């Protein structure tokens, strides 16, 4: 029982960190509400290191994700014949009040909530597994730019998350 409570408290702390990091990445991206791509970057920041491990297992440098997100925007503009760079940064600040994510970010959070019974503890790899399963949107396009086989990434992330769960049971 004590282990269960400890695990739940750890998960709450991880969710808090995940949301804070996602919001920080969204603001850097000049967006107020974090999307799936920002949760993916936030997962790579988590100290458990499992999100990074999932990327490494499919042969992708985790540090390349941010640049791929930016590139999918420029590629998308180029696809309609527009060569445009983002204007100089005008800082964006958070909306006051309740934490709000963009629809794709909410999808990630809802999936994390729906599968919470399988998280013991919640790991970055869980987030990677969810985002890798999204076939459309900014994150999906960024992963395609990186040449990621999303089903392989999801399999790797799910396997790592399973390992994390077993390790937690051993504690």
């Amino acid at each position: 029982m004590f282990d269960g409570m400890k695990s739940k408290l750890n998960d709450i702390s991880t969710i808090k960190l995940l949301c804070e990091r996602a919001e920080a990445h969204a603001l850097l991206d000049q967006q107020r509400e974090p999307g799936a791509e920002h949760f993916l970057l936030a997962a790579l920041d988590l100290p458990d290191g499992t999100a990074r491990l999932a990327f490494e297992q499919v042969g992708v440098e985790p540090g390349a994700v941010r640049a791929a997100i930016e590139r999918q925007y420029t590629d998308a503009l180029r696809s309609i014949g527009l060569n445009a760079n983002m204007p100089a940064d005008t800082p964006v600040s958070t909306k006051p009040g309740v934490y709000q994510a963009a629809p794709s970010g909410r999808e990630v959070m809802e999936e994390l909530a729906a599968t919470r019974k399988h998280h013991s503890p919640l790991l970055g790899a869980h987030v990677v597994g969810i985002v890798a399963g999204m076939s459309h949107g900014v994150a999906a396009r960024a992963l395609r730019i990186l040449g990621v086989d999303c089903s392989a990434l999801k399999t790797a992330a799910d396997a790592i998350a399973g390992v994390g769960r077993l390790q937690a049971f051993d504690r």
Partner: protein
Amino acid sequence: MVDLHDITVPTDPDEALAAVVALRRLADSIERQAVRSALRQGWSWARIAQALGITKQAAHKRLSDVAADNGSR
């Protein structure tokens, strides 16, 4: 200068929708930069809202942090 006739909408929906997302992000960024510049030049929120074709309340709600950054509210 961009000639709008040169803009071709991709036939692949995924590609076309990606372009829409990128254009919105670009427009948002240009809007913030323009509002910042307007505020620095002493424009009122009423004038900015009129130029954007939105209400003063809507402009302030969406862009008030640009004002905060500028040091004028």
